């Protein structure tokens, strides 16, 4: 968007309004993250993650959706991302944002046979 070209043609009062609108837009974009960021859904069913390997970009999110009849957990102690999403009851979902490049080893603390890797690229 060519902001300068647009604002030059406006009278001062409208320009002030436009600047407020622009500031608001920037704040909204900052709070919602990169507009290109993608949400990847991984399901937990039959005591497994739906994929063993996933590649995402920095800024993407991964939603873990528990489709099992028991509670699960999702955590990682990897250098690239350390997080603990806590317990997920059946039919609930929890999300994590991957904000650094690297390999993230993900596991269910309750059921350590449930493992997967997320490769986070630039």
């Amino acid at each position, binding site marked *: 968007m060519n902001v300068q070209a647009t604002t030059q043609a406006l009278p001062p009062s409208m320009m002030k309004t436009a600047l407020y609108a622009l500031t608001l837009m920037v704040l909204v974009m900052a709070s919602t993250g990169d507009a290109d960021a993608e949400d990847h859904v991984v399901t937990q069913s039959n*005591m497994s993650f739906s994929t063993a390997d996933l590649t995402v970009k920095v800024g993407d999110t991964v939603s873990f959706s528990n489709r099992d*009849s*028991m*509670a699960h*957990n999702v*955590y990682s*102690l990897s250098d690239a991302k350390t997080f*603990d999403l*806590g*317990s997920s*009851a059946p039919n609930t979902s929890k999300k994590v944002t991957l904000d650094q490049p690297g390999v993230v080893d993900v596991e269910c*603390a*309750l*059921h*350590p*046979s449930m493992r997967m890797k997320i490769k986070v690229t630039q």
Partner: protein
Amino acid sequence: MQPSMIPRLCVLSLFLVHAFSNAETTTAPTPPPHEWRLPDHVPYPDGNEPTPQRVELGRMLYFDKRLSRDGTTSCASCHDPAQGWSDGLATSRGLDGKTLPRASPTIINAAYNTIQMWDGRKASLEDQAMGPMDSPDEMATDFDKLMALLGRDATYRAAFQAAYPDAPIDKLLIAKAIASFERTVVARNAPFDRWLAGDVTAMTVQQQRGFQIFVDPNTGNCAVCHRAPLFTDNGFHNIGLSSFGREGADPGRFAHKPIAVLKGAFKTPTLRNIAETAPYFHDGSAATLMDVVEHYARGGDVKTHLSPNLKTGPLTQQDKDDLVAFMQALSSPIPAPISAASTRVSHLPVAGK
């Protein structure tokens, strides 16, 4: 009542009697039996197929007290075949009679576990076998002394040569042999197994009722963790034992994986031959199977960090009696003397190997 209805009512009552009596003796297992059948073949890792020679060497080592520093303790001291391959104590005794902090887990069907020890710090049977030998509180093995002993003992030299030809005798080889022996300690012929295989009389009606409560998520909900077919999810749960409320409580799995839900969490044990391995829980705090059922029925005692899967529905006294009766149907005779020929092994991936 009209006379013409009498024969019809007689037929109906006979039908109902027949239906109910059949229901008591021929109830089909639910969920489908195949889910609960123990896999036919015992997994083993690359490079350690449990041949008869390896199993025999492992058996010799397993029962040999000279493996411990002071010659008083063998693997069998805490994993005794006569005590359900555990030791009958609330928590084990180590070197010099020291009381250890946890109960001795049975090694029955440990071959199938994807993770070993109460806190999961060992990945395979090979890793696990070295644990007590390396521990200064347990066997505290003097490996220099042990290697000298094994090297000069003609019987051991021949057994190692037969089991692992031309391989140097070292800690790894000892661990591999003991693990090979442990892979023969398999329980697969309980009344429950025979019932699953189609013998409808193998379990009593009460035991069959107990199984239904065991798997019902709205009542017993036991199978949420004691899952098919191993009666364990190879997972870790804080089950609300009162010992977790004490100062300096055993953190369990949390000591190795610092995740909140793992505070005071311990591995779900198998229930195979459970009637023979009292007392129960990692701290040995339950004397009987009924004590265990009562613990779950009241939802545990200390409820901080309780596993989110610990949810038992309302249980009547009859339900509790049925659950205990069912667990008593999980005991198999384990053949002795044990040999590789008596078990079925196959080369399948083992976690961590």
